[in-house]
């Protein structure tokens, strides 16, 4: 799933971050993720995985790293990371 997320985000022109240079646990906000880009990221993930993030998951922490995004997706899809 990590690879799927990486591929998805890397090809999104609205998210100007070099994911190749980041570890799974690297803080995306420190890497320059803006609130606008984070929303673009959420929309792309919802579309790709056919999920909808509930309100309580829409926090900074959920989208702070590739690993935490993967954890949130698996929680919603009950899929293994």
């Amino acid at each position: 799933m990590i690879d799927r997320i990486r591929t998805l985000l890397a090809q999104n022109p609205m998210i100007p971050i070099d994911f190749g240079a980041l570890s799974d646990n690297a803080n995306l906000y420190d890497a320059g993720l803006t609130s606008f880009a984070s929303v673009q990221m959420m929309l792309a993930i919802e579309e790709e995985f056919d999920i909808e993030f509930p309100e309580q998951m829409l926090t900074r922490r959920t989208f702070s790293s590739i690993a935490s995004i993967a954890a949130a997706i698996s929680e919603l899809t009950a899929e293994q990371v």
Partner: protein
Amino acid sequence: MNVMGKISNPLALSPADCTADRMARVAAIAADAVDAVDREGRFPQEAANALRHERLLGVAIPAEFGGEGLGTAAIADLVVQLAQACGSSAMVYAMHQIQVSSLATHGVTSEWHRAFMRRVADEQLLLASATSEAGIGGNLRNSICAVEVADGRFSLTKDATVISYGANADAILATARRAPDAAHSDQIMVVIPADANRSLERKSVWDTLGMRGTCSDGFLLTAAGEATQIFPKPFSEIAAQSMLASSHIYWAATWFGIAADAFARAQAFVKAAARKQPNVTPPGALRLSEAAAKLQEMKGHLVAAIHRFEAAQQDDDDLSSIGFAAEINALKVASSEKAAEVVRIAMLITGILGYKNGTPFSVGRHLRDVTSAAVMISNDRILANTSTLLLMSRFDTSLGS
């Protein structure tokens, strides 16, 4: 613990202990100077001195660091009180309190910032902020300048297009990129006291329609100091967890206070007319009730936002949620628009005596001051940001029962 003891002991509760009484004395002084401050576009020095004298600059510092530990609601009330006397003084006080909230929220884990909080409380330091910068177009979460840190020291040069009351502040909290090779949004905030390690070169003068006393001149800020003056948390967290909410709440409190004073003047006008002709309903009475309803809406929104913030402060996830940011953004836009509407109605009610300066019913200054509300961080920019957030966030319809 001491606070509880104080409240339960009536002997200890002298008038000097009541913050509302202390602010009432400041407001009286600010009101005497307001016309001169507005006309000359000068810093409200009398009000600033009075705030120091009444020790109201450190009230939001936690008690363990020498302050009085007042929360958001209490501070917002003080801002409203002062805004009814002088909009510029209230905005200066509001902006100071926004900086204090960053310190109180994000400075407790750092030795340097704890010591600085003690200084703010002991010496009643006035804090300003340098977030705007030439070339970034007003986006708080974006810096061009960067701190350079070496051997435990930092240096920074910032072309700050606006530092409100920068020349009058005892310290400036400035944002910058973490390092020369960091991304534009990878920012830190650093406390820069007004000492020999800092220089301010004025680049532009604040000559504006309203809020003239905030003296929001542009400066070239050059500073050096200990690297420990940099907040331990990244600015992105400070912005999301304390600055966003405290800014919009204290600004809204300022605009509410200005609108409330304009309303009071309109009410006095209608009352005077009713006294002269007891059998005739003054034509302005209808508009007065319209203005009262809008003022009530402002108050309701502000109170709800304060409750929302105080609840969210218990929960970092809630505080940094998209829903919270969207709600707090809405407060800024709604209250800035509403304040202008209330003052405009007050102008219609008071007529030529309201339009004219120097009458008991003058509301020209109020109208000019609240006009700043829609442009200090443009409402259009905030609406655009919020509309992005609303792609994800759902509206919370619960009434909080």
